[in-house]
């Protein structure tokens, strides 16, 4: 009987396209009974039974951790921001040459007086002193931002979790700063924001092929991983 493997690929955007290109290059076709919009497919292989599921990049990581998948393509940023109990169940097999993005602390361009994390620290102190409230930082990456702020000794801040367009938070006064992924920087510029280039870099990220540690014992896993 053929060994069965489940691979999770990103369901949208460039991450999806670049992941599909990996299969294309190896001349492996992802087939689906219901056409391109189907979130599930399979790869015809003589040796293995490979099921491919298209999910949000964050869900792919969760699927590895809860044992429903063996391999996934997702962002290193998302893995590092996940719960430590999830991270310990996953191994980064290979970093991939796409999905490059850096997680930065970003500020509105009007914050002329803010050039470094030292300024963030001082402005946060002023917030507590004069406004009796913490400086709010919006982000989808709560864990990573929190850890970074602790390392930079920034106190008196509150992390506001963002579900979607983080770049809009300063405009709506939901947050004064944001912790957000920057790739080309165009979205930031369009929203009158700038990254703290000097010392506001939290993480350099790219897409990666990740594997569930539990699946490493499965017969044939190395062959599948060699696709990447």
């Amino acid at each position, binding site marked *: 009987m053929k060994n069965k493997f489940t691979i999770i690929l990103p369901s949208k955007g460039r991450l999806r396209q670049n992941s599909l290109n990996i299969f294309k290059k190896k001349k492996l076709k992802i087939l689906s009974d219901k056409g391109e919009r189907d979130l599930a497919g399979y790869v015809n292989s003589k040796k293995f039974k490979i099921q491919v599921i298209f999910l949000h990049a964050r869900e792919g990581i969760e699927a590895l951790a809860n044992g429903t998948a063996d391999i996934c393509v997702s962002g290193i940023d998302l893995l590092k921001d996940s719960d430590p109990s999830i991270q310990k169940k996953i191994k980064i097999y290979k970093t991939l040459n796409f999905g490059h993005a850096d997680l930065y602390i970003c500020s*509105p361009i009007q914050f002329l*007086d803010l050039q470094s994390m030292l300024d963030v620290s*001082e402005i946060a102190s002023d917030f507590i002193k004069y406004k009796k409230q913490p400086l709010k930082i919006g982000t989808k990456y709560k864990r990573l931002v929190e850890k970074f702020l*602790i390392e*930079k*000794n920034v106190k008196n801040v509150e992390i506001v979790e963002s579900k979607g367009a983080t770049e809009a938070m300063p405009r709506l006064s939901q947050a004064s700063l944001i912790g957000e992924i920057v790739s080309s920087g165009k979205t930031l510029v369009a929203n009158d924001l700038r990254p703290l280039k000097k010392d506001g870099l939290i993480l350099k990220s790219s897409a990666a092929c990740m594997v569930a540690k539990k699946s490493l014992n499965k017969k044939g896993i190395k062959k599948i991983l060699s696709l990447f």
Partner: protein
Amino acid sequence: MKSKNFSKIIKALNSKGFKNVELDPVIETKYIRGVNLKKYLFTFNDDKGVSFSLRPDLSLMSLIQFSKTKNYNKQKITYSGESYRKNKNIRSQIGWEIYNSNNQKDDYEVINNSVAVFKKITKKKGYLKIGNLELFSSVLNQLQIPNRWKQRLMSNIWNKKYFYEILSRLETNKDDEDEIEVDKKLFYKMKKLDPNQIVAGRSIKEILTRFDLKINKDPRTPEGKKSAKIIKRFLNIKCSIEKAPKILGDFFNKNKLNIKIANNYFPIKKNKIKNFSVEFCASEIPDVQIYSSLVFSVSFKSKNKLTKIINGGRFNNLSSSLGLRPCKAVGAAISFIQ
């Protein structure tokens, strides 16, 4: 540490007038500010959403508990028990502290008890290192650098890696200048706007005032490199306690720093302790941000390396910085990992 030693220490402290206190196992997370404690907390929220943590440090717990009482008299207390941090196994601590303490004699008493505790648990040679944060602050105040840089250095001295990163920025004079040039154009544009207009939670007025302070009122000076050198040399000063006043005096004269060496910098002036080396060490700064002036540690040598087992110092501003009533205090604690 054997439990026999544990009870021996507590008994000895009780005989010196330190009264036992019981500490709560949980603390409101808002009271924990230090980077090195914050990273390793076990936290949970109650049904009202208030965040609590298992106590990561007993000394902090004890001060918070005492500051919440209405006791304004001098009080000598001792505590013992476990502290909980994610990075270590359970750490047991015994501490001895003097609250509502104004007096240098108390510093001496706490140090003396630290030596006595050390002697209760080992016959090895002890190494007592004494430093003083007020002295470091005086050095910073004498340097020709902007006030915000003095504050930056002072508030990050606890985090050595980050402190030296900041120091190297001061040294290279490359922190803000490039971007400030670009921002000047926007500055003049923003000056025409309504000063009360709010951008992301800050008013135009407050942004422009702080920017103006950085570029005009308290700008960087070319003295950064020289000042960084002085700071590094100061932090390298290490000598026997007897020689410290002279060596520090010479250093201040050489670098044209107008600092008087106050008596309270040295609660011990001569080393009269048998089988102990007593040193002044300017870089004797623990990694928790609680102390205000005196800091000290007691170590023993193992495999040619010093192992610290007792840390202590004076923490006059801690309770008020946590929003509690002011309470001047001095204390020390011994900790060991189970």
